């Protein structure tokens, strides 16, 4: 079928596929371009020629020259990949949660994973642990917080499992928030308090290659079940009863989705610190572009989230001679945008 001759091209499955294929191709291409662009800007002047030469040296195994190789391979590229990883992970978790809870106002922190990770990191700083210990503590306490919320929700046999889950998340989350405040009061005001404040604002300034290598597999482990289950998750958005009628066991599926999304969020937040709004806003934009169906929403949200966080982090490291915390930037951009979405109404949802 030739496209131009069809009276209603969008209605046929073939054109729909090729249409969304074009969308995904352009999302991937723009992410790749952004990554290339981000590797060329920064405090250290690095031209395209330097970059090509450095990559050439790396490929041929030639000796590194001066600081260029260090800047590119040890600092800038790890940070770019970290931004991509964090953005994709949080946005994917947000998309999964919004579909799961059938609510567009849900973000990955709804079950307390970010607050829990925050508590873990603050505890690590309070105990003067080294950086790796702080990150491990953030990861573990983040997972444990959601585990606690989920156990409470399964113990409470309500008629509305989702509502119970969300309320338990709110309660445990605010308890963790109180614990953070307590530790802030008890901490050393000269060393620990500033470190706590900076951690809670989120930043990729200190990211290392090793941290990217440690985080990437965890994000993948969380992502694979979401990808494999994407059709069933889609069914969940119809509601538990309808899902059951279609042969999907809502309770068990919900457990897998929560586990996967939590693993992703906890592992990225452990290295980046708390970064708000990305998991809430990005799935909305993705939904506007590819529609609400989860099988397309998930990859679109990941690509958009990766691009978005990369742009924000690049701004954070180039705007001034010091670092601007990412959490501040994402809130400044995210909150007004979200309000605009609200004002626009529920168009595009369901």
């Amino acid at each position, binding site marked *: 079928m030739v496209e131009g001759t069809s009276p209603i091209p969008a209605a046929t499955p073939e054109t729909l596929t090729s249409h969304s294929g074009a969308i995904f191709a352009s999302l991937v291409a723009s992410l790749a371009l952004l990554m290339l662009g981000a590797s060329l800007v*920064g*405090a*250290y002047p690095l031209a395209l020629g330097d970059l090509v030469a450095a990559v050439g040296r790396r490929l041929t195994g030639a000796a590194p020259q001066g*600081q260029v190789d*260090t*800047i590119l391979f*040890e*600092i*800038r590229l790890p*940070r770019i990949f970290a931004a991509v990883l964090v953005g994709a992970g949080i946005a994917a978790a947000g998309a999964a949660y919004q579909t799961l809870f059938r609510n567009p106002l849900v973000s990955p922190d709804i079950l307390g994973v970010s607050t829990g990770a925050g508590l873990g990191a603050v505890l690590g*700083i*309070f*105990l*003067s*642990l*080294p*950086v790796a210990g*702080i990150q491990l503590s953030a990861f573990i306490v983040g997972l444990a917080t959601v585990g606690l919320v989920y156990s409470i929700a399964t113990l409470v046999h309500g008629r509305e499992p989702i509502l119970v889950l969300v309320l338990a998340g709110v309660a445990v989350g605010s308890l963790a928030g109180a614990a953070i405040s307590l530790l*802030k*009061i*008890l*901490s*050393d*005001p*000269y*060393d620990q*308090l*500033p*470190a706590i404040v*900076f951690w809670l604002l989120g*930043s990729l*300034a*200190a990211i*290392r290659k090793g941290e990217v290598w440690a985080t990437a597999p965890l994000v993948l482990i969380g992502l694979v079940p979401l990808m494999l289950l994407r059709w069933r998750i889609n069914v969940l958005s119809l509601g538990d009863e309808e899902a059951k009628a279609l042969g999907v066991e809502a309770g068990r599926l919900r457990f897998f989705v929560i586990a996967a999304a939590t693993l992703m969020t906890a592992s990225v937040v452990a290295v980046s610190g708390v970064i708000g709004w990305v998991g809430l806003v990005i799935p909305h934009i993705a939904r506007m572009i590819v529609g609400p169906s989860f099988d397309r929403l998930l990859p679109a949200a990941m690509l958009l989230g990766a691009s978005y966080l990369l742009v924000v982090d690049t701004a954070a*490291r180039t705007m*001034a*001679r*010091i*670092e601007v*915390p990412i959490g501040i930037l994402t809130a400044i951009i995210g909150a007004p945008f979200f309000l605009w979405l609200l004002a626009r109404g529920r168009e595009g949802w369901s």
Partner: protein
Amino acid sequence: MRTLLAVLLALLAAASAHARTIADSAGRKVEVPPQIEKVFAAGPPASILLYILAPDKMTGWPNPPTAEERPYIAEPYRDLPALGRLTGRGGTANLEVVLQSKPDLILDVGSVRETYVSFADNVQGQTKIPYVLVDGRFEATPAALRLLGDILGVGERGEELAKYVERTFVAIDKVLAEVPMPERPRVYLARGPDGLETGVVGSINTEIIERAGGRNVAEAAGQRGLVRVSMEQIIVADPEIILTWDRNFFGRVKQDPLWAGVRAVREGRVYLAPTAPFGWIDRPPSLNRVIGLKWLAGLFYPDKFLEGLRETTRQFYRLFYHVDLAEAELDTLIAWSKGQAPSQQQLPRR
């Protein structure tokens, strides 16, 4: 004879009943009793100034001294109770506890900006205890010693210590007069577990760098206080000297491949500041910086300041901190200032 005695007594009584009015650093007129027995220090900088001038008038410490700090604080005073902070980030003192210690005066040292002025007025109005604000900038140290010495009735001691600080300043200025700005060493103050926190030029946390004749590499127009920077910015700034008091960071920096390329690390000019009983270069920003200033001037200009650190330290601790250091304790401090810190046991936190 009896009448003479009676007259004298009457005169004394009249004098003691007469409150004096003094002007504090913020220009506030405060009525203080002529005899001040007990003073509540509102925060760590104030407690150090008070401890140095008149330890017998202290009601307690904002934080209890740790096991590591105790040997460097004179005998009866190291056991004073912890009463919390009244001002600054997260006040922890209870006004009733403050009143219970029956102070004749509340003392705060630090910024004399509007926020603190109104806070002082509020507390004074509420407790009916005179509240004195003293300017805590490093440059104002001699003035602070004279003002508080006068208020507390230890004017002679205040004058003696003020002269000591002025002599230190003058000796450094004399050397600096011959060193033009571009020849002064470029210094980075590394804070936090990853060393990527610092204070920008003009912040109270780093003013000791300029005072000792260095140039702080962290500059940001319109920014004050503590900030985060990235590894790339440090490589670009390429400081000649790195200062820190974080033992985790100090222990790691030499093995770290990213820091290895930075000039200070390459040339072995990373220095660890002792923190007992108080920090040598900050932590808190108070009179404790005077010994750090002498130490730093010697590090920045090793051929111009030949005063032996050991004797200087012994003298300073005797004159300011009321302790005659045993040889072993002095050894610990000197080794510490040369990079061999006592191992950081997991002491009970404050």
